[in-house]
């Protein structure tokens, strides 16, 4: 086959196949919509510190942060005290806690791997979506406590 026919044919075939496969996939924007409950907060590097005396108090044996430490890290964040995150289709994000009911906005950036949350006063935070399955979501974010690396927040889906 001549190149002038071969190239357009291959291009059309690959493009058609690409868009067909893309149409079969559910995008992260629709997968994230629903109600998610925070299950745990963990430090990325807590395991290496856990046996070093005073730091032992920072976390329990499986690396999860205590409520006090979690509160210290999150006190300046939009997500502070939120326990249930409700992602709406209209890009609203309701955060519910014991004494909290806050409404923010969410967007996805990059290839759908960055969650942007915008609160009041133009405050914007970015979280890396490390995992997003129908039942589980894992977010990572950097804290000021760089020595312990990123914080991993795990969610389980309550309602779709």
């Amino acid at each position: 086959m001549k190149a002038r026919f071969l190239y357009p044919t291959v291009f059309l075939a690959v493009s058609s196949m690409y868009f067909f496969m893309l149409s079969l996939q559910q995008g992260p924007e629709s997968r994230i919509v629903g109600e998610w409950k925070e299950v745990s907060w963990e430090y990325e590097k807590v395991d290496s510190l856990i046996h070093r005396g005073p730091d032992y108090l920072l976390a329990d044996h499986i690396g999860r942060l205590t409520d006090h430490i979690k509160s210290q890290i999150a006190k300046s964040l939009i997500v502070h005290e939120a326990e249930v995150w409700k992602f709406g289709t209209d890009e609203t994000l309701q955060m519910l806690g014991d004494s909290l009911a806050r409404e923010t906005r969410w967007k996805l950036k990059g290839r759908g791997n960055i969650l942007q949350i915008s609160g009041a006063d133009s405050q914007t935070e970015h979280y890396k979506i490390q995992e997003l399955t129908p039942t589980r979501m894992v977010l990572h974010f950097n804290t000021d406590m760089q020595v312990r690396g990123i914080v991993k927040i795990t969610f389980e889906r309550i309602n779709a």
Partner: protein
Amino acid sequence: MIKRYRDRTNRENIQLGVLTAFSAGMVNVISVIIFFAFTSNITGHFAILAEEISKGNWYQVLVVFGWISLFFLGNFTANLIVINFNKTNAYLAHSLPIVLEIICLLTVGTYTQFYYRETLLETELMVSLMLFAMGLQNGLTATISNAAVKTTHLTGLTTDLGILTSMFTQKEYRDRPELRDKMRLLLSIMVSYVVGGVSAGLIYLTINYNVFYIVCLFLFIVIGYDFYRIEMADYLAKKQPFYRKTLKNQAA
């Protein structure tokens, strides 16, 4: 800067490298700031592609595959234009990919400034256009400089720089003018890319999405410089007999 295909001087390569690397550095940094995705380097996207395949995130796999394909398509298009139009009009053949690149970046800049609602689809499309634009630029500079100038990523450049630096430990290599020229070219591109990136990061804080227009301005300089020189040469040749004579002698 872009009109010559063969027998290019190192000066021409440095001029081309500096301006396009500066643009690429700006585009890359601004895309990370606004869209959270790199748009001038592809190695990282291949690593991400592999990571997403291993995780089974097929939507992301397709998105990243699309981005890589558009960078590929940009290179393909730039070279296709050059090899098809080079004999009829070299200047047009070499400037057309940059014109296309400017159109892509102006589209991204204008859309982002006035219509961008930060949806994921918009983000993916903007990144796609920017990757296509960077592919065009990389394809053009590599084609017309015989692969001496590649300005959108620094992996190969850093490799060459490392090799050259080690060669310069010996006097016989240090004294070779072509190697010294290459060192100057590589250093110019590297510094320019970094300065472009830093500038984009700094000026974005004050002028926001207008950064794209500044990138386009630099690209206009690339095509405008040669246009000016060609037009000026024609003008002088027509108006000044002495200059015409000099040109004639040079050609002979």
